[in-house]
């Protein structure tokens, strides 16, 4: 079963044939936003001083104004308010959905409400839902980077596949990824993508990153063509160079 861990820009369902039908959908409103009752507020502004996120500012009329994009919903303002005029209101933070795709694959997709800060939360929920279905194997497609969504995507996995291109920015990114994976105690292997962009750099990737390289996928225009047709490349053209390499890699990994 697949899990789309890129809750800010989920694409896995689209890349696997699009949504045929939704089997289950859960909405989350766990995060809270501080809301000030102006009727009771005495404009003491203690809430502004205590907010660690600079999420409250003094409005032109003297009342405190909460910036909903900066508020973390911690409730420090409510604790210090002498007039007890701050309440914490829930906000829709995201949706987790179990989907059957056009190709008959089952995927749990995660999606945050635009502008929400719940990315990690929603990814965590998506992985929980996948686990509940009790499949033989779960493949999580993580977001790029090393931040909140990525940490939630990789925590506790049995194997982390680090995808890297033989270009300096990508290798620098992979190094940070591996540092994070080590901190989290994960088993890691690397796959070099578009290896023919720089053969020599590709050969050095394993040494530079200090983890085993399990495969080298060639730069193959069929891959991006397959996205345009809403299909994984293995399905779109099993005889393409990329597909053949991918199959070899999966056979090595899964046996």
């Amino acid at each position, binding site marked *: 079963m697949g899990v789309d861990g890129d809750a800010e*820009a989920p694409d896995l369902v689209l*890349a696997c044939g699009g949504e045929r039908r939704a089997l289950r959908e859960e909405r989350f409103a766990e995060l809270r936003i501080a809301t000030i009752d102006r009727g009771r507020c005495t404009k003491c502004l203690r809430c502004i001083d205590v907010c*660690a996120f600079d999420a409250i500012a003094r409005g032109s009329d003297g009342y405190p104004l909460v910036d909903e994009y900066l508020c*973390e919903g911690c409730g420090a303002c409510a604790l210090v308010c002498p007039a007890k005029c701050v309440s914490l209101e829930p906000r829709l933070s995201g949706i987790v959905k179990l989907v059957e795709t056009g190709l008959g694959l089952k995927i749990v997709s995660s999606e945050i409400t635009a502008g929400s*800060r719940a990315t990690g939360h929603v990814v965590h929920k998506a992985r929980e839902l996948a686990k509940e279905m009790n499949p033989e194997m779960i493949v999580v497609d993580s977001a790029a980077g*090393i931040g909140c969504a990525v940490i939630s995507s990789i925590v506790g996995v049995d194997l982390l596949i680090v995808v890297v291109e033989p270009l300096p*920015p990508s290798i620098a990114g992979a190094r940070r990824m591996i540092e994070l994976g080590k901190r989290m105690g994960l088993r890691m292997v690397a796959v070099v993508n578009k290896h023919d962009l720089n053969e020599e750099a590709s050969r050095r990737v394993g040494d530079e990153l200090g983890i085993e390289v399990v495969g080298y996928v060639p730069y193959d225009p069929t891959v991006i063509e397959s996205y*345009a047709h*809403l299909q994984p490349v293995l399905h779109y053209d099993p005889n393409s160079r990329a597909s053949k390499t991918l199959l070899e890699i999966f056979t090595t990994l899964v046996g």
Partner: protein
Amino acid sequence: MPRVVAVMGGKGGVGKTFIALNTARILGEEGRTLLIDADVDNPCATHFLRTELVWRESVESFVPVIDRSRCIECLNCVNQCPEKALFHVPSKGVNLIPDLCNGCGVCKIVCPVNAVAEGRKVEGWIEFYKGTALDLLVGKLEVGSRREAFVIEKLISRASRMWSDYSYVVIDSPPGTSAKLYPIARFSDSIALVTEPTPLGLSDLVKAMNLVEKVRGGSRVVIVVNKSGLNREVEQRILEIARSRGLRVFTIPYRDTVPRSVAGKRIYVDIFNDDISQTLRELARELCKP
């Protein structure tokens, strides 16, 4: 005040850094320009520019340090910690899981005996590089931190304290559509939303448009369709959406000179003078129009 231009787009790998670097280079010919690399997970602008590190500052947040001699183990802090970062072990007192703490300070407020002291935790770094044509401010997330939104917010507010020295500021954003993009969108006079003509690119573009519409304060928005020609049908739909929202579109064809410039760690307009360079120049002009 400078003209602040942001290069955004929901999807990763569509060419945001490519557009930001070229825009900054072109504007650098007109006036002093600061490029801000806000892709704090994996900043990579330094790979493309000849610059020298001038200073480096840490981005820190509050973490509680429990004073065991004062703590009466009432557990107010443990029970009220919104992130569940504090836990209690009977023989060892109150302990912190630093990776979960978001620095809100609720523990300090609810402690009746003042046993919570102020500690600091590094969430990231801000680095300033001086270049010949272009200066660079880079935000970098500390490995293991979940708080990229916090680092980006501090990066942009640090930048705003120094950008009156510049005519132009170009911000290279991270991918995504969460609150971490808010400080970037809010401070920008104009925004280029970069996408590619695939169903994935289209889907993420619509999300990015909705985010920008929600938070922007009247900034100019344009669409950049990179890798044009991949899928005519999807590209047509992007053009229709742009037209219906009254947004100007710039189109960059799918051609190998673009990845070649990136692989060679060069800026496109420095090594090619063709129709793509022409479009990049027009885009830069549009973005800095008052």
